[in-house]
Each structure stands twice: as structure tokens, then as C-alpha cells.
């Protein structure tokens, strides 16, 4: 396990998390995240080889509702908070062609 996050790693994580960071922020976060991860390395002290991971505190497994139609939110209600909409659509920049970006 590595304790220290490089600026490059922070840029990579920020890209995965879809967060645009300014250059000065990259180094600031690298230092802070490194300190936290250094502390988290404590977890390596424990032998957990035969321990079952616990993702959830209750024993509930998939709970399904009856397969009957219900009334969803109206288009209007769904679009009401959209920063940019052309009912019944959300508007986004061009995705195909030159707009992909990724």
C-alpha cells in the first residue's frame, strides 16, 4: 500500500470522480489525502484473511415490490429542477462527433 498520493494520482482520481481541479488544488488535496490514507493503513495491522466482508448492517437481501405499475413522477416534476431543459428532454452539450471529450 502506498501512503503518498502523487499529484498525478490525484489528477487521475479527480478525472475518475469527474471533478475539475485547478493546479494549486491538486497539490493541496494530494497532501491531505495522503495523510488520511497513511492513517487508514492501520487496517493492514489486522489479520482479516478469514473474515467475511460486511457491506451492510442488516441481513436484508433484495426486497422486491409486486410487479404492478405505479404512478411515477410526472415529466413536469422531473424536469422542474433541470438547469437546462427542452421538455420533455434534458439538454446537454453535443455528445457525438467533436463533443465527446472523454
Amino acid at each position, binding site marked *: *500500500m502506498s501512503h503518498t498520493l502523487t499529484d498525478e494520482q*490525484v489528477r487521475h482520481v479527480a478525472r475518475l470522480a*469527474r471533478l475539475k481541479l485547478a493546479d494549486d488544488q491538486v497539490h493541496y488535496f494530494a497532501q491531505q489525502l495522503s495523510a488520511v490514507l497513511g492513517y487508514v493503513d492501520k*487496517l*493492514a495491522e*489486522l489479520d*482479516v484473511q478469514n473474515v467475511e466482508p*460486511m457491506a451492510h448492517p442488516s441481513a436484508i437481501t433484495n426486497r422486491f415490490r409486486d410487479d404492478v405499475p405505479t404512478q411515477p413522477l410526472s415529466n413536469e416534476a422531473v424536469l422542474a429542477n433541470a438547469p437546462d431543459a427542452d421538455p420533455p428532454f434534458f439538454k446537454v452539450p453535443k455528445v457525438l462527433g467533436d463533443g465527446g471529450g472523454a
Partner: protein
Amino acid sequence: MDVTQTTLTDLRDAIASREVTSTQATRAYLDRIAAHDKTLGAYTQVFEERAMQQAAAADAGKRPGVLAGVPIAIKDNLCSTFGRTTCSSRMLENFRAPYDATVVAKLEAAGAVILGKTNLDEFAMGSSCENSAFGVTRNPWDTDRVPGGSSGGSAVAVAADLCAASLGSDTGGSIRMPAALCGVVGLKPTYGRVSRFGLVAYASSLDQVGPFARNVKDAALMLNVIAGFDKMDSTSADAPVPDYLADLDKPIEGLKLGVARQYMSDANDPAVARAIEAAIGAYRNLGARIIEVDLPHTEYGIAAYYMVATAEASSNLARYDGVHYGHRTAKPDDLIDLYAASRAEGFGDEVKRRIMLGTYALSSGYYDAYYLRALKVRRLIKEDFDKAFEQVDAIICPTTTHPAFRFGEKTDDPLAMYLNDVYTVNCNLAGIPGVSLPCGFSEADGVALPIGMQLLGPAMSEAKLLRTARMYEACERHGARRPVMAGG
């Protein structure tokens, strides 16, 4: 009767018997908010007109219920069709929820008057209430100090008598810690006991809604209103709900109370250590057996918690994309830039930190070492509690190591801030209930700062836990002391 200086239960009874009207009570609380909230910053929004209408309706008998006409506040990460649901974030500054959270609907159905929505650390991430995009909340006992987070606004609203009771949410201590630092009662129910539908998600396997109140009885009354199965929350527990008030004043015979060495450490401020020792003594005098229990994995809780919580946060907060709702950047280069710039502009630093931590913990090559390992340690922590609860009814410990700290003291050192949660996070990892109640004060330089004690119990043991808390409260009335604020 001074309506703002009484308990929820007494005010409720006074309104029911027409000794006072809901209109008088609501007006009195609104006036107090107007007088003090500029300094304290407990509220993000106050619904004056709506609250007065609801009060009038209650007085006309049109809002019956166990909380008929009583003014309540709710944390601003609970969705409501009235007002906005901001999570104290620029991201949701203008968000109007299309539905009410189940707990909000239940309060309304019980006849409560909702005064307003309270300030929090952005998206419930923080331990000091300094991370709100709309300004900090101040501790009424000393306004240079933090109220604790993330439900700081809800704790202060009760501590400073700006509402009769309130709702908060607790992911790693966000109800119990501000309750302790502000000198009120805060209850984090068992995971699944209260519906999370309409609570804006931070870490879904840890989040739980719960009440703040001036005493244990008021907290039990609030739990009676909000507890229960909800088909809209697939993690809600389909189990009967007892009446938490029924035997509340009946002391528990043969109470066995656990004390764990791991919680009585040198890290505790001397005043905190003294107050907890005194509380243990009080229980002994009440006939409780004090039994030493071992919680050997306690010290790994923070590390496990911050991996689990941030991993879940990174996933939950992916929904803020600048497309469906929330903040959107003005001139994006392309679609990816729309996401990345909107999120960078909308989220504050603590939220960004946690999203990145979680993204890192879940990323290829690190998943096993961080996230998966944290889930295994989570199991060990739960098993510690399971073993302890074979011997005792509840565990008593401090809620926090120290009384309230000063603003800015830990803001640049996230790790120091995270370590604050040392006594509260394991309760969420295990999904068990925990209650914090006042157990004394730290007195220095003419300032009194409240100290909180925490009682932890096995899953679904709220009734017993509240009775245990009530036993103490009935003989040691630290919660009756109120902060003195400028202007009264």
C-alpha cells in the same frame, strides 16, 4: 408558561389543553429565531408564513395528532415539497424536492408545525458545521466554538430554544456529537428503524434519521412519530414498533451496564473523564451492575468508517452531474467538462475530499487493500458489540473526547477532524442505536461547555436504551441548564 422555555411534551400538552395556542407558541419561536439566529446560524430557511398558517390550522383543530401544533425544525438534507432542500451546498442551492421525505410526512401527519430547515456540514460531511456553503452554525454556549457536526443546526435549534425538537441525520455521529457539544439529547436509532426515504444520501449503509430534544422523554415521543417500516425504503426494517413512551419512566431492574477500557482512554479531556466516571457512579447508585467489556477493534473504527463512508459517498454523489438538477456550469467545453466543472463549482472542499478518497478506495488496484479490508474490519467491530451485548444491556462511554473546540482549530487538518468521531462511528458501522445525553459541564474562564455521555445498545433496543437514559436523567438534571445568550 414561557412557551420557548419548556419541553416538547409539556408544550404539546399545553397546546392540547388550550392553555396556550399553537399560534402563540409558533409566534414565540419565530420571534426568538429572529432575535438570535443571525448570530447562531442554526437555520438555512425559516417558513414563517407557512408555519403561522399551520399553527392556525392546528388551533382550529384541523391538524390533529400527537404533535398537534408543536413547532419543530428539520435538517436541510431531508426532502420537503415546501421550501428548498439544499444540503447546505451550492450544488442544491435552488433545489425543490418533488416529494416529502417519509419522516417529514410523518411529522406533518402528526400535526407538527415545521418552522424551518437547519444548517449542516455540506451533504452531512463534517464534524464541526463549518463546511456549510451558507455560513457556519455557532455553539450557543460559546459562539466562538463549533456546535459539532454535521447536524449542528438541528442541535443548536434545540439547545438555543429555537424549536421544541428537531430531526437530524447520523452517518458517523452526526446526531450524537452535536447533541453532546450543545447539551441536548440526540438519538441515532437502529439502522432501518426509521425510513431513509427522502433523506439525501451520503453513505447509505450508515445513514439514519433521528431526533434532537431537550430530554429523553421528548426524544422518545419523536421516535414514536418517525419510527416504522416504509415500503419506499428497501432497507427499512419490517418489524413491529413498540410505544417508546410506554414504560419510559420505569427503571430497568437488574440493569447491566458495560464499560469498555477502549473508551476510557487518555485521549479524554479530564473534565470528560470525570463526568463519565460520575455518570457510572450514578448508575451504580441506581442499582446497576457495572461490567467491564472488551471492544478490541474500537481503534480501527475511524479508518474503516472513512473508507466505507467515502466509498458510498463517491457513488451516491455521482448523481450531481449538472444535468438533471442542481448547479450547472455556465459554458462547458463538452459533456465531460459539463460534469467535471459543474461538480467542481457546486461542491465544497470537504465533499471533494471525500469523493476522491472514496473513488481512490474503490479504484482498480486499491479496492482490496482499502475498501474490502474496511468491510472485513466492519464485521470485526460488529462482532465485538455482539459479544459485549451477550453480557450487558447497554454500553456507557463518552460521546466525544473533548467539549466543543474553537472555529478553525481543525479545518486545515482533515485527519485531526476525522479523529473526533472516534467514539461515534462504530455504532453506525454495526448499525446499532446510540443516544447521547448531557452528563456535566467543563467550566473554564467563565464559560461552561456541555459534556455528553453515550449509551449504545443492541439492534432494536431503543425502548430499553431510552429507559436506561431516562433513569440517569431522572436523578441528574444536567440538561435543564440552558445557555445564556446575548439579549436573553
